[in-house]
């Protein structure tokens, strides 16, 4: 990342990009409110809501009890009645407690009422492992991708965090917005001009010829690191950052994979019924047989023990090794 300032942008940490998106949307639309644990004077677990309560007051920026099911339900009900709430669920592991209102009500409300009720709700949560153990580390995005009516986004850069959060707050249905613990210490250039990034568009982070590596969130950085290493071995990786998991930008992935002839999926979550399995199958349906491989977490809980945590999760070396194996494999056969 360049230390030089980039024209028309400013360098922001993730927390700053998130706070900026919320501040702009709350200024523009009185219906936007924020609910969550420690979102008020404390400013959020990652300071991503810093000073919002001071600016917009305790009615619109509300600390809640530790009650995820009711927190999501409150947001869903308020959204169904015309507000545009963001509910902050500190870690994705705790989202399980709030899935009933999100999956059974919010994702179905527009359908089941024949369009009478919409639920413009954002549930923002943080996934990923960073030393916090088996119930504070999980990446459960794949569970949520298959819920009709629910959008799922997971940015890997502060610019995307800013643009996707703004789009999510303007979306007329429920959106699950997923941050990653290891991204909060990172910074990146964010446009000075107000920018809304539409849901459902992947980004090609690095162009390449030999293999398409598709990932999202923090694992995009791991993919780029692996691509750097492989470049020294004359292996050219194209790296695609999904950004949005539902809707999924299949065209970008499938056209890249068809061009490179090889597809490696990378995720921090589980491989079984995972994002990679879904993408590989959809790419095959669209583009025909392509050599594929997938990298994800080991089929085990993720410990807070640093040795065991590292052992369970993908890293650049494992990704590079998987790419080498994939390219050594014979071409995929037509069925």
């Amino acid at each position, binding site marked *: 990342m360049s230390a030089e300032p980039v024209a028309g942008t400013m360098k922001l940490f993730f927390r700053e990009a998130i706070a900026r998106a919320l501040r702009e949307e709350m200024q523009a639309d009185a219906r936007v409110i924020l609910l969550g644990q420690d979102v008020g004077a404390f400013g959020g677990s990652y300071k991503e809501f810093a000073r919002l309560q001071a600016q917009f007051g305790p009615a619109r920026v509300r600390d809640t009890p530790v009650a995820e099911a009711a927190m999501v339900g409150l947001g869903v009900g308020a959204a169904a009645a015309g507000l545009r709430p963001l509910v902050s669920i500190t870690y994705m592991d705790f989202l399980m407690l709030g899935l009933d209102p999100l999956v059974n*009500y919010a994702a179905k409300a527009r359908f089941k009422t024949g369009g009478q009720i919409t639920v413009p709700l954002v549930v923002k949560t943080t996934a990923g492992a960073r030393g916090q153990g088996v119930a504070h580390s999980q990446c459960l995005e794949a569970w949520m991708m298959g819920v009709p009516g629910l959008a799922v986004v997971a940015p890997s850069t502060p610019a995307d965090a800013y643009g996707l959060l703004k789009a999510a707050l303007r979306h007329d249905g429920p959106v699950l917005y997923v941050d990653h613990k290891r991204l909060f210490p990172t910074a990146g250039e964010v446009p000075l001009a107000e920018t809304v990034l539409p849901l459902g568009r992947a980004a090609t982070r690095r162009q390449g010829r030999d293999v398409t590596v598709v990932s999202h969130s923090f694992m995009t950085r791991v993919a780029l690191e692996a691509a750097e290493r492989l470049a020294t071995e004359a292996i050219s990786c194209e790296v695609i950052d999904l950004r949005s998991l539902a809707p999924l930008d299949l065209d970008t992935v499938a056209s890249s994979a068809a061009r490179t002839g090889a597809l490696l999926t990378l995720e921090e979550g589980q491989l079984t019924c995972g994002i990679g399995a879904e993408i590989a199958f959809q790419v095959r349906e669209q583009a025909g047989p392509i050599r594929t491989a997938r990298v994800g977490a080991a089929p085990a809980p993720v410990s807070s023990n640093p040795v065991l945590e590292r052992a369970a999760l993908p890293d650049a070396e494992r990704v590079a090794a998987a790419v080498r194996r994939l390219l050594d494999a014979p071409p995929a056969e037509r069925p």
Partner: protein
Amino acid sequence: MARPLRGPGLDSAAGQPTQLLRRMMVIRAFEAALAARPDHGFQLFSAGQEAVAVGLCAALETGDQLLTSGRSIAPALARGLDPGRVMAEILGRVAGPARGKGGRGHLAWPSEGFFGAHAVVGGNLSIAAGVALAFQIEGRRDVVACLFGDGACGAGALHETLNIAALWKLPLLLVCDNNQLSVSTPRSQALAPARLSDLAAPFGIPGATVDGMDVAAVRDAAARFVARARVGDGPALLECVSERFSSHSTATRETRPKDQMAAILARCPIARLAGELQRAGELGSADIAALEGDVAREVALAVAFANASPLPDPAEALTDVG
């Protein structure tokens, strides 16, 4: 507000005993007509529990919103929704307010003050609190009522909602229609508190238990709590002890013995109010007969309206998603 949430407005006579009687009779006849149809699918009926829905709705005003459990036909009709449109929705016809896409357990017509049913036990409690939060933030004087069964009282949803509603003084009335059974499990085997309205006390909000077979008692208790909520004094919990006249659903077998059922059926809220009105000299037997004929005609019209509406095009399975 993106969307107005006005309701139909009950006429000023709606809380009067003959109107309460009429509404209960419409619900009973509507459900009987539905039960008689081979194409009703799977239904949860409210026979025996009409007084809870009708008494509660008599206490609500036009701009208020009602959310309910999946046992929602009685509350929907009590709220004043057009019976023909409701029948169409339940039978999956496009003339239903949700074009037949919600159906049983998910009736909704928010522009008429019926925010809707939700067929997950306890699932509407925190949603109702969210609607109340929106009303409070927008400075509206409207109140939200949420009707749920005793089966929901053991779930965390009620306790989480009571806590937040009390803490934030939400304009919310939680009404437990305690029919004393969760499918087949007696309330005594499922819930520790002797009186469910006692659950309000730890949260510092008012609670009351009334006879859910007495429509006027339900109306009066609900009206007191609605009035408090409307002026910003916060939520309340009302328990209405009722009797379910049939099994949990049309697909569930009855487990109660015949002699117990006879005693339960003898407590009919409709017969009770009709008898009271006759004894008070307000209605004669000819009036009752006229009312019955009137109700039968209204239900027949509702059935005819629904029958005239088509089922949806299969393409509607993919519309309004997201």
